[in-house]
C-alpha cells in the first residue's frame, strides 16, 4: 500500500502531534521548570538530607527486590519450561497477577497479612518484627510489583534453546550446576538482562503499593516517588520537579539499556 505523499505526511503529523501533546511536551516542561531558576536550587532540593534519604531508600528497595526476583525468576522459568509437575498451570497463571492487580490493592493485601491484626501480624509482633509502616513491608511491596519481569523474559528463550546442549553437557559428566553455569546461563543472559532492567525500572518507580504500606513517615519511610508527592503537597514545586527530573533521568537510562539489551538479545537468538 502506498498512500499518496500528502496522506502519508498527514498521518505522520497526527501521530507525532499526539505524542508531542501527550508525552514530549509535559515531560519537557518539567525539565524546563526544574532548571528555570538555574542549576543551584534544583541541586539543593535533591541534596537535602531528607531527599538523599529518600533516594537511598529507593536504591535499597531495588537492591533487595530485584536480585530476589532474579533468582526466583530463573528458578521458576526453568521449572515452568523444563519440568512437568502438579500445580504447574496454576503457577504459570499466578506469575502474571502483579501485572493485573492495582498497586493500592497490593498494599492493602500486604497490610492484611503482615500488619497489625493481620494473618501473621500477632506472630510478627510477638517476635518484635515490624513489617508494615516500615522498610520490610515496602520491600515486600516492591518485590510484588516487580516479580513477573525476569520470569516472562527468560521463559521464551529457554523454550527456544531446547535441551540438546544441556543433555550433551550432562552426558559428558557435567554436574547440574556446571551445566547451568556454562550452558544455560550464557544462553539466557541477554533475556535475563532485559528482565532485570524492566524489573529495576518498575521497582524504582513504584508508588501506590509502597505508599499504602509505608505510613509515609517523613524522612523515615519515604522513597523517592513518595518524596515527589510530599514536596508537591508542601508547595515546594522546585523540590518536586527536581526529584522528578532525577527519576526521569533514571527512566531514560533504563530505556537506553532496554534498547541495548533488546538488540543484543535479538543478535544472540
Amino acid at each position: 500500500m502506498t498512500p499518496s505523499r500528502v496522506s502519508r505526511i498527514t498521518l505522520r503529523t497526527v501521530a507525532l502531534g499526539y505524542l508531542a501533546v501527550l508525552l514530549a511536551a509535559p515531560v519537557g516542561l518539567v525539565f524546563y521548570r526544574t532548571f528555570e531558576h538555574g542549576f543551584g536550587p534544583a541541586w539543593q532540593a535533591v541534596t537535602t538530607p531528607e531527599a538523599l534519604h529518600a533516594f537511598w531508600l529507593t536504591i535499597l528497595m531495588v537492591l533487595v527486590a530485584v536480585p530476589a526476583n532474579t533468582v526466583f525468576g530463573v528458578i521458576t522459568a526453568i521449572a515452568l519450561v523444563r519440568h512437568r509437575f502438579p500445580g504447574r498451570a496454576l503457577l504459570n497463571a499466578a506469575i502474571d497477577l502483579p501485572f493485573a492487580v492495582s498497586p493500592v490493592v497490593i498494599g492493602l493485601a500486604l497490610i492484611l497479612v503482615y500488619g497489625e491484626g493481620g494473618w501473621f501480624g500477632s506472630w510478627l509482633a510477638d517476635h518484635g518484627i515490624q513489617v508494615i509502616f516500615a522498610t520490610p513491608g515496602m520491600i515486600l511491596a516492591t518485590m510484588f510489583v516487580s516479580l513477573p519481569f525476569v520470569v516472562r523474559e527468560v521463559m521464551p528463550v529457554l523454550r527456544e534453546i531446547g535441551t540438546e546442549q544441556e543433555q550433551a553437557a550432562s552426558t559428558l559428566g557435567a554436574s547440574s550446576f556446571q551445566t547451568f553455569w556454562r550452558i544455560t546461563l550464557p544462553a539466557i543472559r541477554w533475556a535475563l538482562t532485559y528482565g532485570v532492567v524492566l524489573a529495576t525500572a518498575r521497582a524504582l518507580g513504584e508508588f501506590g503499593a509502597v505508599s499504602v504500606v509505608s505510613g509515609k513517615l517523613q524522612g523515615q519511610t519515604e522513597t523517592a516517588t513518595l518524596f515527589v508527592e510530599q514536596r508537591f503537597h508542601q508547595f515546594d514545586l522546585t523540590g518536586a520537579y527536581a526529584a522528578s527530573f532525577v527519576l526521569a533521568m533514571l527512566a531514560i537510562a533504563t530505556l537506553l539499556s532496554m534498547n541495548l539489551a533488546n538488540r543484543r538479545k535479538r543478535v544472540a537468538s
Partner: protein
Amino acid sequence: MPRPTGAAHGRGAAGIYLSLIVLIPLAAVVSKGFDNGWDGFWSAATSPASVSALKLTVVASFIVVAINGVTGTLIAWVLVRDDFRGKSIVNSLIDLPFALPTIVAGLTLLALYGPRSPVGVDVAYTRIAVGLALLFVTLPFVVRAVQPVLIELDRDMEEAAASLGAGPLTVFRRIVLPNLWPAILAGVALGFARSIGEFGSLVLISGNLPFKTEVSSVFIFGQIESDRVAAAAAVSVVLLAISLVVLLAISALSRWAGRHDA
C-alpha cells in the same frame, strides 16, 4: 539436567516465595472482603461512593483504550511504514510511560495542563484529567502489540489489492486491518487491565473528588487511610474480579492470535 531433588527444592522455594508475596496476601483481601458475609460485601461494594468510583473507572478505561486502539495503531503504522528523521528516537520514546514513575507522569501532566499551565489549558481536577493520565500510562500497549505484526505482514497482498484498483483506504480496511485485529485487541486488553488499577498518575491531577474524579483505586486508598479496611477490601475484590476476567480474555485472545498465524 539438574538432579530431580535439586529441581524439586527449587520449585518448592519458588512456590513459597510466590505464596508469601502474592498469593497469601491476595487471599487475605478476598477473605477480608467477605468478613461480614455476602451481605457485608455487597453493601460495601454497592455504596453510592463506591459504585460511582467503579463506574468512572470502568467507563474511563473503556474510552481510553478505545482511543488507544486508534492512535496506537496509527503510531505503529507510522513507525513501521513511514520514514523520517528521528524515527528511532520517537520509537524509543514510546516506552517512556513504562519506565517513568507514575507519580512523575502525573506531575508532568499537571505542569502542562494544570492551574499553572503555560499554554492556558487547565483541566486539573476534572474527568478530562483522569482520561489524560490514563492515556499517558497506557500509550505503549497497543503500539507495542501492533508494531511486530505490522513488520511481519506480507506486503504482496496489499500490492495485489492495489494493482486491482483498491484505494489505500480500502486496502487498509480489507487487507491490513483484519490481520491487525488480534494484536490491537490484545493491546487494548492489556491497557484496560492497567487502566482499571491505575493510581500513581491520578493522585495529583485528578483531585480525588468523590462522585466526580475519584477512581476505584483512589477510593480504596481513602478507605484504608480512614481505617475502613473491610470496605476497602470489598471494592478490591471487585477490581480483582475485573482483572481476572481481563487476564482470561487476554490468554484466550493470544490463543486465537496463535491460530490466526497458523
